[in-house]
């Protein structure tokens, strides 16, 4: 089965941890994740500037490791990211901001990528709210 997973909630929301655990279980079950799409406050999970306390779950870090290890297509909504200060080097330069906080494996792109993912996948599973 092919899954597209969309995340709408920030890293501190339990639903964003649920999204990661679901994605891990899907891969462990032999399913394919055609794309991860981070939208709205979900873009914060792709920021490389998030610092978690040592005894707390580092969700952005776990997402990064998971996406890298599984060679997934991790797409972050560009409009949602820019307005929340999540920029890659190219956007930081374009808007003359002093720093970039979005690096590989994440890629900034448009909502069209979510639409395409739903066409490519058998199931779209969204995670958001509490």
């Amino acid at each position, binding site marked *: 089965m092919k899954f597209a997973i969309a995340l709408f909630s920030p890293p501190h929301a*339990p639903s964003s941890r*649920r999204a990661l655990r679901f994605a891990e*279980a*899907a891969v462990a*079950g032999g*399913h394919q994740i055609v794309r991860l799409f981070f939208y709205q406050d979900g873009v914060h999970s792709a920021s490389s500037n998030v610092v978690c306390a040592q005894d707390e779950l580092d969700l952005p870090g776990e997402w990064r490791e998971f996406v890298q290890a599984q060679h997934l297509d991790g797409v972050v909504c560009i409009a949602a990211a820019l307005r929340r200060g999540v920029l890659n080097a190219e956007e930081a330069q374009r808007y003359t901001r002093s720093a970039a906080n979005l690096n590989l494996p994440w890629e900034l792109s448009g909502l069209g990528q979510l639409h395409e993912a739903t066409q490519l996948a058998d*199931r779209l599973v*969204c995670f958001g709210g*509490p």
Partner: protein
Amino acid sequence: MATLHVLSHSPFTDSRLGSCLRILGSQDALLLCGDAVYALQAGSVQRQALELMPESTALFALDEDVQARGLDLPARLTQVDYCGFVALSCQYDKVNTWL
């Protein structure tokens, strides 16, 4: 088209659970996770509403959230882990998360 509805909001803060139960078709299923599992609180109207749902409507709860809140699972519901959650997503035609 059979749909798996996924609910994570507490039933004591908004009306999502009520709305969801109203539109749930006979072939649909409901998965409670996060604070939505508080609907299983003993003696609550929400738990009663779940127990009154027709037999054909499958009801599930995410095990870690039930355990984390120390709730006891009514016989009407089936507990699933993340593997089970993935399996349910495959089993039903659509997954509708109440964001």
